[in-house]
């Protein structure tokens, strides 16, 4: 059994690689940097913001065997006031979080490199339900991913028996979340990437439409469905008002 994970060298992606390895998968990690102690992983170095290297990645995948599980996990953020974030940072967020995974997914499907009855997963964000003032381009990119998944789901199921799962994790106990959270945010309440990876992986293997890891995420998603506007107001109060700098990547 073969699995491919993007952004598998740290955070949630690394946790996905670990879970997959424990379950006997041969795991390919697509990441700019190799993972620490990655002797068990096949590492493909790729900067997802660079279209030429993504083209090379697609070519390389096209020459290999199909994957049973593909997890589009790699993502970056850009937090701060929208108008103060550098144009290049906004562009990188869109490219890495949305454009690259859509391009790689479509190319893999065209080359039949996702095995029949396999599983594809996109890691969107809880911001899909809550909005994210203070990371508007990030929120945009994660909404793109969620709706891309929704758009391809039926067709992929019908043509290849492949399931498409969208995961909406909230902030996790990762360095990434730490850097982008406002000053004084309580990291202890956050879920560990290992727990999130286990929960999401079980939804991926079941072929669930969506994965909302943890009770807090489920509650936020529910409120977001019932009262989207008040929830965004809350996000403004607890995040946007406290941001005093811009942070990219």
């Amino acid at each position, binding site marked *: 059994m073969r699995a491919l994970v993007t952004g598998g060298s740290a955070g949630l992606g690394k946790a996905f690689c670990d879970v997959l390895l424990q379950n006997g998968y041969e795991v390919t990690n697509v990441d700019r940097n190799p993972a620490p102690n990655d002797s068990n992983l096949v590492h493909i170095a790729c900067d997802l913001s660079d279209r030429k290297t993504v083209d090379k990645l697609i070519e390389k995948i096209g020459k290999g065997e199909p994957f049973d599980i593909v997890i589009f996990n790699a993502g970056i953020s850009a937090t701060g006031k929208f108008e103060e974030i550098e*144009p290049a940072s906004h562009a990188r967020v*869109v490219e890495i979080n949305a*454009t690259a995974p859509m391009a790689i997914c479509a190319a893999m499907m065209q080359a039949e490199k996702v095995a029949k009855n396999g599983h594809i997963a996109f890691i969107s964000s809880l911001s899909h339900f809550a*909005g994210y003032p203070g990371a508007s381009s990030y929120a*945009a990119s994660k909404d793109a991913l969620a*709706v891309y998944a929704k*758009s391809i789901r039926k067709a992929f199921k019908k043509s290849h028996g492949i399931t498409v799962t969208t995961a909406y994790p909230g902030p996790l106990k990762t360095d990434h979340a730490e850097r982008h959270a406002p000053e004084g945010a309580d990291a202890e309440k956050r879920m560990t990437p290992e727990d999130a990876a286990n929960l999401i992986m079980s939804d991926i293997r079941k072929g669930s439409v969506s994965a909302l890891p943890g009770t807090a995420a489920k509650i936020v998603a529910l409120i977001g469905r019932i009262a989207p506007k008040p929830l965004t107001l809350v996000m403004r109060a607890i995040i*946007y008002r406290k941001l005093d700098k811009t942070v990219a990547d």
Partner: protein
Amino acid sequence: MIRRKILITGATTGIGLALANRLSLRHDVMVTGSRAPEDITEPFSANLTYIRASQADPEKAAQTIAEALLKSGWTRLDNVVLNAGIGFVTQKALDDVDKIRSTQDVNVTSTILIARAVYPWLSKTKGTLTIVGSVAHKGQALFPAYAASKAALNGLARSLRSEWAGSAVVQILHPGPTYTDMHEKAGYDPGWMREIFIRKEPMAKMMEYAIARKHSPVTLSWLRYLAGGSITGKRL
């Protein structure tokens, strides 16, 4: 009535141009597009100022528009309508890599960067930034990358409306299928269905009224049209 300063992107054809022509009767309107002026084939009001800024290169497009605003001597913007968009139809929900990229560049990255670039002008008047989405933003197997790009704009508008509250209004409008050349350019033949698409002039009217009301998100489809959405409403 004050004479507004308005910028509309992607207004060399379709609903963008219909809106620009309409608003140019009473306001100062600057429009952008990717075409050379001689390639504009639809009726183009003589009152419009045209800036050529292709959104295939998002950073350059934003820069070109900011420079044009500086050069024009405009010190404020009352309305910005980020309307430019492209899309491509797929088979079995499989987009081409190049088309995914160009759809994202034109529809998403350019919209983000132009919104950012016009902020100094727009915030002076506490003006309105209108982003043109699509009813496809909830998902559409016929053109997944296009639907995704419009979902991105919906999410952008939602978060940015909250961020800019107090300094500018941000709204998103989701037009339904409109009788323009977009479908042909997208490689899609809607067949007889095209005849029931809303014409671009009534769509432009509905857009104007929605812009004047500043609500978000707003769906501009048959339901609104039949409810008189293109007849009754507040002019800008």
